[in-house]
C-alpha cells in the first residue's frame, strides 16, 4: 500500500471479503440468534465495503464503480489481508477471526475519523460504531468458548494458534498511508490481550508471519471465494434485479 487509492481499496477489500465469509454462515450457525448476528455483522461489513470501494473507484478516476471493483477483478488484484479470506472453520475459528478483525477495525476507523480526507473521515466515523458491536460480540464469545468446557477451550485455542500468525499482516508499517497501520498495534494489543487472558487462552509466540495480501499475493482460498461471489455478475453482465 502507499497512496490513498491503494489504502482505500485494501480496506474495502478487507470488508468485502469478510462480509462474504460471514455470509456463508447464514442458515448454518449453531443457533438462530447467532445466525442473525453473523448475517447482521456481514451486512455492516458489506455496507462499509460499498462506501470504501465506491470512493476507491473515484480516487482511481478510471470509471470503475463499486460493482466493477467487487466483481470484475481477479484474485491478484485484490488487496485484502489474508486473515479475512481464510475459511470459516468451526465456530471458534470464526469468532477468533472476528475478534482479531474487529480489534483492528475499531482503532483503524477511529483514526480514519480524524484524518484530513473528509470522505474517509465520514466513513470511519460511521463504521467505527458498528465495529464496536462486532468487537463486543466476538470478545464475549471468545471468553465464553475459551473459559467454557474442555472441548470449547481446545477448539478456541486451536483457532487462535491457527489464526494468530495472520494478524501481523494487519500492522505492516506504511507511513505514506492516510493512517499508518503500525500505529494501531498498541490499541489492538490493549483490547485483545485482556480478552485472551480472561478466556484462559495462551497467546502464541510470534513466529511465522504470513503476508502478501496487500500486494495481491493470496492463499488459494480467495480464488474459490471470488468464484462464488462473482459468478452471477460475470455470467450476466449488467443484469439488474
Amino acid at each position, binding site marked *: 500500500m502507499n497512496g490513498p487509492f491503494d489504502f482505500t481499496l485494501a480496506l474495502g477489500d478487507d470488508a468485502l471479503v469478510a462480509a462474504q465469509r460471514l455470509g456463508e454462515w447464514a442458515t448454518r450457525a449453531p443457533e438462530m440468534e447467532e445466525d*442473525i448476528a453473523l448475517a447482521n*455483522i456481514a*451486512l*455492516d*461489513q458489506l*455496507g*462499509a465495503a460499498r462506501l470504501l470501494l465506491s470512493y476507491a473507484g473515484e480516487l482511481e478516476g478510471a470509471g470503475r464503480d463499486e460493482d466493477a471493483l467487487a466483481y470484475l477483478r481477479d484474485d491478484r488484484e485484490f488487496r485484502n489481508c489474508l486473515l479475512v479470506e481464510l475459511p470459516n472453520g468451526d465456530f471458534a475459528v470464526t469468532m477468533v477471526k472476528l475478534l482479531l478483525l474487529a480489534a483492528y477495525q475499531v482503532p483503524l476507523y477511529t483514526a480514519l475519523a480524524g484524518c484530513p480526507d473528509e470522505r474517509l473521515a465520514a466513513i470511519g466515523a*460511521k463504521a467505527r460504531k458498528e465495529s*464496536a458491536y462486532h468487537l463486543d460480540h466476538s470478545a464475549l464469545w471468545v471468553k465464553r468458548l475459551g473459559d467454557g468446557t474442555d472441548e470449547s477451550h481446545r477448539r478456541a485455542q486451536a483457532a487462535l494458534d491457527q489464526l494468530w500468525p495472520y494478524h501481523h499482516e494487519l500492522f505492516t508499517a506504511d507511513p505514506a498511508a492516510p493512517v499508518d497501520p503500525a500505529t494501531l498495534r498498541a490499541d489492538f494489543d490493549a483490547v485483545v490481550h485482556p480478552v485472551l487472558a480472561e478466556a484462559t487462552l495462551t497467546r502464541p509466540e510470534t513466529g511465522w508471519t504470513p503476508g502478501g495480501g496487500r500486494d495481491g499475493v493470496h492463499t488459494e482460498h480467495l480464488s474459490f471465494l471470488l468464484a462464488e461471489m462473482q459468478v452471477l455478475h460475470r455470467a450476466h453482465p449488467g443484469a439488474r434485479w
Partner: protein
Amino acid sequence: MTDPRTAVAAVVDPEIRVITIDELGILRAVDEDPATGRVVVTITPTYTGCPAMDVIRDDIRRALAVAGHPDAEVRTVFSPAWSTDWISADGRAKLAAAGIAPPAPRGDGTAVPVTLAVRCPRCGSPETAQLSRFGSTACKALWRCRSCSEPFDHLKAL
C-alpha cells in the same frame, strides 16, 4: 401543491412503518430552488449496510411527485454519523407504542454503551433479558420480558 418539506417528512421508514424518516432522524435537509422548483433532499443511513435506503429514496421521490414536485434529487451523506439520539420524542413514543423498546442515550460514542434496564414496551416491566444483540434489522436487538414472557425488539443505542 404541498410544501416539499412536509411531503418528505411524512415518508415512513419501510422497515419500521410506525415512524417517519423525519422522526427517525435520518432526514437531514429539504431544499427547494425557488427559480427552478428543483428539490434536493439530503438523508443519512442508520447503518452503512441498511438495505432500506433504496426504498427510502424511491419513496421520497414518489412523495414529492405526488405533492407536485417531480424534479427531485436525493443525496446521501454520512457525516456527521447518525445517532439514535436523533430520534425525536414523538418517534420514541411511537416506537414504544408499536412494541419496540426505544434506545437509551448512547454515551460518548467511543464504546458500546451498557444498558442497565430496558423496559418491556408491552407491560412496562424492567425485568427483561437480551436474547440476541442483533435482531430482525440492522438497527434492532432481540429482547424478552421475564414478567409477561413476550419477546420484543429493542432499537440499539448507536
